[in-house]
């Protein structure tokens, strides 16, 4: 989108045939068409960020379709779960494709959501009146992480069994209520068939319904407030209504669809070249398999848990780590209220520095989790903090590269 967009591209011309008139009288199509015509997407140098939400929505659609398909053959019981997934991979035609797409798409979806969160922060799109859009977005992120965690157990293989055992045990580290959280999550003291049934219900009934409800609010808010435009762009153009824009239908939607088509192709390639592993059937009394680690999107917490000493400030290791990440999550949730200069377009240097540090720490800790970096906790903190300081100094030293000429 490097070419200059037209100031006012003409909206789509809807076919108004007799059929249209018949349906419009009964369904109110003209009102919908009018809504679609009215929706416009601003064009500026970070417009590409606007595609991430639509991409997440598309991947969620893929998850629903492939998930429903998998549920036709999957059997949620410890005696049959592993065998039914094996049958999907070996006996059912194209079962390997559907399952691999479901797994790959889940991973891409979480990656896109992390990017969506980061770019929304960068554009400061959470500022008044969009605080609830930010909060519902974070709730959705938490729900998709829960989707990932609950879905991971369903094949009932050794990795899944221990991931669930460890994950629920960490949740049991929450002070005061931890014990009850663990009993509720596992439906008992151990990971058993009841846990599997519970996670299945969570994965295919409870979370989908809850997600659709929160997603509806999130999308309603996006429609209500329109796309948020970064403040420097508004200043440069001399007002929000003077920022160039294109109609959502069909101009932006068609670009969206190009992205979706590429994503679908990528999923097919990933599924064909790297079909998802099944592993070996869970043995509740066997030892944890070698090199066991969670999915990449939980690795930063996993690495931190590994590095943290057994006792911190009188707290046990897992309690300290759970408290720390709860605190971080709460801070992210409260960003719209912590950024007190947002409305005036003032600076947010402290927050930006902390956010940069958090992103650097996420990358470093993911590297540690993958075994690429052999860091202790202090090394990780110093390395990510150093990287954040270097980026901040770079930002101050090279305003042109950082794009600060917008502020003129």
């Amino acid at each position: 989108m490097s070419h200059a967009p037209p100031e006012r591209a003409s909206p789509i011309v809807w076919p108004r045939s007799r059929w249209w008139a018949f349906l419009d009288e009964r369904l109110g199509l003209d009102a919908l068409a009018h809504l679609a015509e009215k929706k416009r997407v601003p064009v500026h140098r970070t417009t590409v960020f606007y595609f991430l939400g639509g991409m997440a929505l598309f991947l969620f659609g893929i998850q629903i379709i492939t998930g429903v398909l998998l549920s036709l053959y999957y059997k949620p019981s410890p005696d049959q779960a592993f065998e039914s997934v094996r049958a999907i991979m070996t006996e059912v035609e194209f079962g390997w494709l559907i399952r691999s797409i479901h797994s790959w798409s889940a991973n891409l979806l979480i990656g896109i959501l992390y990017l969506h969160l980061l770019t929304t922060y960068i554009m400061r799109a959470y500022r008044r009146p969009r605080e609830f859009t930010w909060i519902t977005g974070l709730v959705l992120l938490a729900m998709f992480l829960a989707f990932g965690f609950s879905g991971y157990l369903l094949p009932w293989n050794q990795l899944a069994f221990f991931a669930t055992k460890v994950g629920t045990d960490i949740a049991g580290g929450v002070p005061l209520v931890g014990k009850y959280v663990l009993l509720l999550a596992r439906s008992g003291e151990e990971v058993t068939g009841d846990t599997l049934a519970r996670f299945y219900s969570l994965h295919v009934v409870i979370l989908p319904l809850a997600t659709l409800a929160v997603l509806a609010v999130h999308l309603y808010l996006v429609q209500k407030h329109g796309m948020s435009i970064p403040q420097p762009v508004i200043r440069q153009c001399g007002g929000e209504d003077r920022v160039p824009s294109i109609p959502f239908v069909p101009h932006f939607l068609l670009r969206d669809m190009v992205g979706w088509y590429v994503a679908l192709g990528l999923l097919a390639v990933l599924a064909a070249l790297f079909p998802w592993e099944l592993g070996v059937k869970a043995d509740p009394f066997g030892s944890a398999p070698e090199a066991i680690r969670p999915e990449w999107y939980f690795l930063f917490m996993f690495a931190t848990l590994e590095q943290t000493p057994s006792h911190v400030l009188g707290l046990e290791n897992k309690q300290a780590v759970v408290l720390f990440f709860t605190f971080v999550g709460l801070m992210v949730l409260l960003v719209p209220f912590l950024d007190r200069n947002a409305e005036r377009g003032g600076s947010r240097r402290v927050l930006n520095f902390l956010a940069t540090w958090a992103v650097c720490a996420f990358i470093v800790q993911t590297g540690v989790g993958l075994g690429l970096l052999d860091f202790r906790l202090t090394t990780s903190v110093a390395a990510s903090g150093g990287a954040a300081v270097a980026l901040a100094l770079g930002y101050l030293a090279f305003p042109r590269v950082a794009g600060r000429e917008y502020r003129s």
Partner: protein
Amino acid sequence: MSLSTDPVPRRRCLLRLLQGSIAASIAAIFYPVVRFLWPRRATVSGAAEVTAPFTVEELKARYARGEVPPPFNFDNKPCLVILLPDGEIRAFNAICTHVACTVAFRPDKKDIFCNCHNGVYDLNGQPVSGPPPRPLQAYKVNRRRLPNGQEEIIVSRTA
């Protein structure tokens, strides 16, 4: 060199190509989904014959106690075996020819009855009253003397 400068045929050609690739994409998406939905091949092949879970003597004893043994599995379909007063044994596919309920033998009424829609067959499997349109599928019955003196019942498909 006399290439047409008229943009319309080229535009139409591009449009056809676009429509063609959209159709091909949709086909490429739906083909695996339809194949996935299609039932997988059965792993157990149908049996040609089966031994009833009771002998002739056991069947007699159960009738005497007022019991009627339920149909049993033959080739994944319920198989109904009845013993006539004259000692003849008949076997039927117990699936009602109306809408595929499983029928039952009624010794007191000397008929075969379908509880779902009150279909009545006689003991030859011929429909007598109610909605069934065709007779029950009959099976061939063989008896084999066991070492303990009892006779077992072997049901097989006719022809």
